[in-house]
C-alpha cells in the first residue's frame, strides 16, 4: 500500500501551486524515508511547525501553501527535524516520487484542490483573512500582516 502511494502517478492538469518539484535528499530511519524540515521549507515550500501538545509534549503540523494537517512520525535528529515522506504525502495530499536509489524524493501538487474544510480557525491551521476597522477608522487585514508574528487578543468590557 505504501509502495503504491510512492509511485509516480499521472497528474491531470493541475493549477500551479507553490509546491516546487525540487528533489530533496532522503534520510532513511527504521527503513522509512524522511526528509529534513529545513530542506522541505527551503526547496519545497512546505513548513513543519511545532504546536503545544497535550501533557507538555509537542505535536507537529505540516503546512503547504493553503492547508495544514497534523503530521505524525516526526523525528528529532539533534537540532534537525525529520518528516516522514509517507506521512507528509498523506497529510497534504501530495504525490511523492522517489528516484531509483531512493536517495531523493520530489513532491508534486495535490491532484484535487483539497484546501480544506471550514472557515473557522484552529490551532495548526492557516488563519483566515479578515478585515477589521481600527479606532482611527483605517482598516487592516490579517494577510497584510503576513511575514510578521501577530498576537491577537479579543476582549469585551464584560
Amino acid at each position, binding site marked *: 500500500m505504501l509502495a503504491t502511494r510512492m509511485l509516480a502517478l499521472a497528474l491531470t492538469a493541475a493549477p500551479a501551486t507553490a509546491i516546487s518539484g525540487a528533489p530533496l535528499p532522503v534520510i532513511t530511519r527504521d527503513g522509512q524515508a524522511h526528509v529534513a524540515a529545513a530542506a522541505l521549507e527551503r526547496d519545497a515550500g512546505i513548513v513543519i511547525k511545532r504546536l503545544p501538545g497535550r501533557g507538555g509534549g509537542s505535536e507537529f503540523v505540516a503546512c503547504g501553501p493553503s492547508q495544514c494537517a497534523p503530521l505524525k512520525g516526526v523525528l528529532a535528529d539533534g537540532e534537525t527535524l525529520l518528516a516522514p515522506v509517507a506521512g507528509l504525502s498523506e497529510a497534504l495530499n501530495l504525490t511523492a516520487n522517489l528516484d531509483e536509489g531512493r536517495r531523493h524524493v520530489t513532491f508534486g501538487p495535490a491532484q484535487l484542490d483539497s484546501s480544506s474544510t471550514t472557515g473557522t480557525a*484552529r490551532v495548526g491551521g492557516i488563519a483566515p483573512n479578515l478585515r477589521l476597522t481600527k479606532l482611527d477608522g483605517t482598516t487592516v487585514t490579517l494577510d497584510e500582516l503576513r511575514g510578521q508574528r501577530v498576537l491577537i487578543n479579543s476582549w469585551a468590557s464584560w
Partner: protein
Amino acid sequence: MQGLEVVKPWVKKYGVTFPVAVDMADVFGAAFGLKAIPVSFLVDEVGIVRLQGGGPSKEFRAQVEEVLREPVSAVRGRTREAPSVLSLGELRARAARQPDDAAARLALAQALERSEDLAGALAECNAAARLQTKDAMIPFTHGLVLLRQGRTNDALAKFTAARELDSGNWRIRKQIWALEHPEKFYGTNGIDWGWQKEQVARERK
C-alpha cells in the same frame, strides 16, 4: 462588539499602544469560532495559528516567547478568500448569485452594518434567518445590529434566541447579562465577578 463608546475609554484608561480594532458585527468571533473571551491567538509569519490562550497567564506567555525565538520562515501561506475582505459590491453580487445561501446573506448583513446601512443589514439578517434556523450567529448578528439602532429589547430577544441555539457560548451569555444587568458591569465598582458566579449557578438550575 460594543462599539467605540466602550472601547475608547478602556484604551485610554489602560494606555494601550498596540493597534485596536472595533468589531461591531463580530467578524473576528465568527471567523475564529469564539465561544468565550478574553482569548488570544498567536499567528506566525507563515499565517499558521500556533497558539490559543485564554486570559493572560505565565504559561501562555512562555509559549509565545518560545515561538518568537524560532527562526523566521520564508514560506507564506495562502488563505481562501474570506467574506470580510470582499467588498460590499462583491458581497452583494455573491448574495444575488446565491440568494439561498444563508452564509452569503449573513456576510452581506455584516458588511452592510459596517457601512452604516443598518436597515439593509436587518433585511439580510432576516433573509438569512429564513434560510437557516440552527446557526446561533444569525440571531446574534441580528441582535448586534438592533443594539446599534438602540432597540435594546428587540436585541435582547435575538440574543436570547441565539443562546437557545448555542448554550455553551459565553459571548452570547455575557452580552445578555450586560444588557439585563448593566449595573453589574458598568457601575463604579467595575465588573461584579461574584455576581457572575452566582448567575451561572442560578442558570444551571
